[in-house]
């Protein structure tokens, strides 16, 4: 997306949220449709069951509907909405974990990744990502899956930038242990562990 298009999208989001704050259901629906795909794509990496994904998205937009008038526009609308989705997902993931109901992505490989691009690297990657603590994985997903900057992730997760850096650092370190094939050179990997 070009800078111009990004700015235009930001302005459009802002206009929609202003309308939502005034009780405009149509504006909420437009906002919902414009965010649904990226949120579904992001969330489906954690909860492959679409019911869970839909529940998190709808919970998110219930909060958007009810809190739009309180938004002060100090941050971008997208950051605010994704922040709500992040916290909703975090709660849901922790709840699932507590009830031993968290679905392992390994159980749904055919549902989450296009089989035509399934590779050994992706298999390792999926397994490695599943081993990460939720906050570290969410940070990595927000950066790589959603394309957010360090500062945006800090705003979304309501954490200092330093915490985001630390989570990313630890996520990358752990992934290296799980992803020997990613180095593309086995001897180098063994040298790393020395």
């Amino acid at each position, binding site marked *: 997306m070009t800078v111009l298009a990004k700015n235009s999208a930001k302005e459009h989001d802002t206009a929609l949220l202003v309308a939502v704050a005034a009780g405009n259901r149509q504006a909420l629906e437009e906002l919902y449709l414009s965010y649904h795909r990226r949120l579904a794509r992001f969330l489906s990496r954690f909860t492959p069951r679409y019911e869970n994904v839909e529940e998190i998205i709808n919970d998110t937009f*219930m909060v958007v509907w009810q809190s739009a008038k309180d938004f002060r526009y100090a941050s971008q609308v997208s950051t605010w909405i994704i922040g709500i989705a992040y916290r909703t997902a975090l709660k849901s993931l922790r709840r699932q974990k507590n009830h031993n109901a968290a679905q392992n992505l390994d159980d749904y490989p055919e549902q989450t990744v296009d089989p035509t691009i399934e590779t050994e690297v992706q298999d390792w990657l999926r397994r490695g990502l599943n081993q990460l603590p939720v906050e570290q994985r969410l940070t990595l997903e927000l950066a790589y899956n959603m*394309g957010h900057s360090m500062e945006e992730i800090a705003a979304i997760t309501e954490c200092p930038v330093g915490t985001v850096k630390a989570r990313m650092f630890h996520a990358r370190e752990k992934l290296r242990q799980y992803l020997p094939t990613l180095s593309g050179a086995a001897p180098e990997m063994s040298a790393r562990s020395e």
Partner: protein
Amino acid sequence: MTYKHRSSAAPEHQEISALIPWYVNGSIGEHERQRVDAHLILCACCRDDLAQERRVYQGMTAETAVEYMPAISLKRLQARLDGVVAAASADVQVDVPAAAKPARRWMPWQGLMAASVAVMAVALSLLAADRWMQFRARASAPNYYTVTTSTAHAPGEVIRAVFSPAITLVELQAILDEAQLRIISGPTEAGVYSLAANSPRPVSSSLALLRGHAKVRFAESTQPSLGPGDRP
């Protein structure tokens, strides 16, 4: 980047290494991008890191096969919103005179939401209490019983017994005469007879006689402390 390298890494190297994920996803600022570019020329470890992060990035951004249908999800959201609006409207009608209703429907959200949540909480509490009472009632009075289920004893009852469905009245009377027992109630739905003693004969003796008869399916004293020769 290797561990060996990291142990002697300069702060500049560590800073650049931390920026690599955002260099990869393209969200890094122009100034920082130039810093990373300059460092990458000199640092083979960071180039390796960059290559690895690009593979991770490509793996994570691979298109999913599943295409969601937002229209269906949106309908469900609309239904939820309609429910909230209906609940809020109901509260407004109860609490606020029509003339005093705010012109813009979104104004009373917070208060109305809190009120509707409170009403729902009370309703749920009542429902939960009702369910709990039902559960307790069921638990204390099961809708089934067995021949050994403890119920109020008929006066004089010493034995409960179940006879074969094929037993004739004559055979039953003969067994009872021999055991010196009489029927004081029954049969219940489960076919249980309450029997009382007709003589000072020990209950244990009558019980043994019943148990020895082929047409007696079950016989048990209702006075567990009884021993051989004992009599209540």
